[in-house]
């Protein structure tokens, strides 16, 4: 094996080993409990995929620039058992997502709850995943 192919094999090996870690991880590995965040914006779409669903939301910043955030949520079956449905959020809905930002400062966050356009608050994260220092979740004011 020459050096080039050795490096390539090593790189492939690292990549394969890293995939499950990136895809399915603990809260602490990727998100920062010291960075609570609340986003307001337009719901774009939802990826109902394992091991984590992803909510995509367009957020307009102070300069009027639109940035699409990717908000990690529970896997599809967990959301479904909590009462979420395919049409719970519709494209263009003005929603509010509350949770914790990614450690690396990217436009990714861990979703604890979503406040819908009609004021309902739907929980989308497993509270057990949070460290005890996490601030409490907001209440559902619609009830």
């Amino acid at each position, binding site marked *: 094996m020459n050096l080039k192919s050795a490096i390539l094999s090593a790189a492939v090996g690292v990549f394969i080993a890293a995939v499950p870690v990136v895809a399915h991880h603990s809260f602490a590995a990727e998100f920062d409990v010291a960075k609570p965040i609340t986003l307001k914006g337009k719901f774009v779409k939802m990826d*109902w995929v394992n091991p984590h669903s992803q909510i995509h939301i367009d957020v307009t910043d102070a300069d009027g620039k639109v940035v699409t955030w990717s908000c990690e949520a529970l896997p599809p079956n967990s959301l*479904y058992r909590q009462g*979420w*449905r395919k049409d719970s959020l519709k494209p263009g809905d003005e929603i509010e997502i509350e949770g914790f930002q990614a450690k690396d400062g990217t436009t990714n966050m861990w979703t604890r709850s979503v406040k819908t356009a009609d004021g309902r608050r739907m929980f989308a994260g497993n509270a057990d995943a949070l460290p005890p220092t996490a601030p409490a979740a907001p209440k559902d004011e619609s009830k």
Partner: protein
Amino acid sequence: MQSMLAGLAVLALALGSAQLAQGQNSTARAAYKVPRTPDGLPDLQGIWQVRNTTAAFDVQDHAGALGIPPGRSIIVQPPDGKIPYKPEALAKRQDNFKNRDAADSLNKCYMPGVPRITYMDFPFQIFETPKYTLIAYEYIHNYRTIFTNGTKHLDGLDWWNGDSRGHWDGDSLVVDVTDFNDQTWFDASGDYHSDKLHVVERYTRTGPDTLQYEASIEDPEVYTGPWKISIPLYRHTEPNFRVLEYECQAYADEAAKGGGR
């Protein structure tokens, strides 16, 4: 003129053999009394598999192509044996065909969907209870629980193999399947559907070792009307036969590395 005559002759032959096949089927069906399970249900239990192994490559009439053996259509409605695609959908199907290696979600080891899983060349086992029938497929640990207890479909989420609710109609198990995602195909040739797909399956035992599988398919986003497939399944009679484990990803990884095939 000569070619027209030849065409007519072929048509006559085709019609004749179709009628003959139909006649044989109905005579055999009339003579065969479907056994009952201890619960009194028509007994479809056993391990079944297709012998027509080209349908999973292409459900329509097709010549051989790279990775696709030739075969005849399993579509019995409409009579021309073709999927009644809307014009724009047919164009997408042709694109799918061209890009089939990358675009077929089966090649990424995703679940095959219904009805494709039925005529893939892998065995599956049917178990019946009064409340549900369970089908355990060898292919990547798929199973379907077909509830026959009068419950309604789960609505509001999509699944690879859909949501199945069945009832017994005479000797047949009739299964209504909805809640599909739009990621699966009917075969390896790009024949596709949207998430509005609705499938009604009918399983009818036609002899001790044969089961006729029919599936009526509709999807107003993709087809101009309903279409239907029909394909026989055969029972495994080897005394030591059983459904084994077939994992996909490990073999796909091997193939990607140039081995495993």
